[in-house]
């Protein structure tokens, strides 16, 4: 459809004469910007990851892999934390998000748009302020634990959630939940209910119909939602810093620390590159597991 429209013969006038140049002229400024500030920085970062030196005297490209050795040697723990917390956050957003997206898509009725609006409402507040709100909520004497400790005496006075992996996971799951729900909703909404009815007519039990019809058709949404959650969750460092503790710090915390505080550009760059590579590998494996041909739908 699109191809047919694009394939139309060029019209009369200036487009006829300059027609071949027009798309390139339209692309030029934007692609220049992306080239200068997306591609070049990546090249520069790769160069620094193979360099030695310091901020005062400059960095010299030596091709040395020292930065990568240091990165893996010293910060393996934080890489592991990123994979674990990012992965668990993705799993939890899926477990929470799927029933929500399913309910909105199939049962939302005339409240569909209102429900979707409520799902994206958190985006109208700063990510940082929402995380600070969780600090308030989960605080040792906060609105949640305070009453449980002193009014109902259900918890010992020393009980604490803030500054733990649990709080960190709670925050990560919270922050990325809408990114999971929206693509799932879009995928589920597209499903023709008659397909599910057909499965039922063909004597599929409701669960079987769900597993054999609804779920496979929702896979593109699962894929998109998981990526939209996993990629930013893995690189996040705010939840670890505000809700976690030094043992739960993730790779984002280290990258931020190396580059902004220690001015250790080679190691900071190497860490970023490893993170990027890890994500590319994870996405590739994930796409293979889910089945690539099903994701194009």
């Amino acid at each position, binding site marked *: 459809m699109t191809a047919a429209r694009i394939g139309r013969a060029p019209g009369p006038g200036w487009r006829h004469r300059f027609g071949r140049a027009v798309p390139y002229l339209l692309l030029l400024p934007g692609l220049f910007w992306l080239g200068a500030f997306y591609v070049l920085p990546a090249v520069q970062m790769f160069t620094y990851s193979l360099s030695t030196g310091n901020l005062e005297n400059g960095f010299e490209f030596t091709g040395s892999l020292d930065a990568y050795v240091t990165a893996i040697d010293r910060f393996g723990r934080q890489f592991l934390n990123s994979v674990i917390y990012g992965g668990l956050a993705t799993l939890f957003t899926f477990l929470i998000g799927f029933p929500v997206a399913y309910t909105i898509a199939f049962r939302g009725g005339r409240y569909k748009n209102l429900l979707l609006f409520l799902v994206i409402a958190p985006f109208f507040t700063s990510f940082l302020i*929402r995380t600070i709100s969780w600090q*308030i909520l989960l605080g040792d004497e906060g609105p949640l634990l305070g009453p449980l400790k002193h009014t109902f005496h259900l918890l010992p006075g020393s009980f604490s959630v803030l500054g733990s992996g649990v709080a960190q996971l709670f925050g990560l799951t919270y922050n990325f939940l809408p990114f999971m729900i929206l693509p799932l909703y879009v995928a589920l909404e597209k499903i023709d209910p008659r397909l599910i009815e057909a499965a039922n007519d063909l004597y599929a039990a409701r669960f079987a119909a769900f597993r054999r019809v609804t779920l496979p058709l929702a896979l593109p949404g699962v894929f998109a939602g998981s990526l939209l959650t996993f990629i930013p969750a893995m690189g996040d460092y705010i939840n670890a810093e505000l809700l976690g503790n030094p043992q739960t710090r993730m790779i984002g915390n280290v990258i931020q620390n190396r580059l902004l505080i220690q001015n250790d550009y080679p190691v900071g760059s190497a860490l970023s590159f490893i*993170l990027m590579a890890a994500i590319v590998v994870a996405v590739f494996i994930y796409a293979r597991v889910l089945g690539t041909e099903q994701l194009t739908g």
Partner: protein
Amino acid sequence: MATITAASARTSPGRRASVMHGLDRWFLPVFTALAIFYLLVPIFVMIVFSFNKPAGKFNYIWNEFSLDGWRHPFDWPGLGDAVVTSLLIALWATVFSTILGTMIGLALTRYRFRGRGLLNGLIFLPMATPEIVLGASLLTLFVATALPPLAGAVPSLYPTGFGTILIAHIMFNISYVVVTVKARLSGFDRRLEEAAMDLGANEVTTFWKVTFPLILPGILAAALLAFSLSIDDFIITNFVSGTTNTFPIWVYSIQRNALPVQINVIGSMVFLGAVGAVAFTTLRSGRAPRFR
């Protein structure tokens, strides 16, 4: 629907069917309500605590009701400047990224050229790159412009500040604008343009009188998205801001020493303003906003 449920209940093993039925009937709506509650609770807390009069420097524990924060929303050193900087960056980043992104979107949907398919895929790359990598790599580039061998040969972008934040925001917004504009352009009926040209309008007149007004809603949606991404960005900005504070950077730098109630007040203002804008456009257009 009722007959289908009855049919499946008849044909499937009884116990399983009744479990599924209960799941469908009660579990899903209740679960959804709880999930939405989970999403909204921090916003509720933010608004409630904007009326707090904290006992110490940290607005963590409810003390007593007060309107002080709302009466003096910028009463904290550096806060007003940070909010102004945030607004200026978001405004300029929106203007530039919308223009650049719309041009790419037009080229990708309306012209056939070499590398079009490839570019259609590559344009997603900046969106798929973790923000921390975008920020870190930009910082290495900015630093490199001030160090040998580049120093002197190119304009120096270090130390970082307003300009570098703006550069970064335009960069990460472009892809979002392209994708949004493309989505709107794909349903465009080109016969309208042909009609205009049949009636004697030239290419330029046709573009401004027919094409542009038709794609304007898409461009505005993209601009709105760019603005909200820009004003909320923390992770990338933190790498390229130097000593310049945007509102999120200011919040981050102060939260270790104090948590003034003004943070909640400004957060609430932004939230209520955004909700108000959506409600206003919904009521005016007489239909619910579309999220797809």
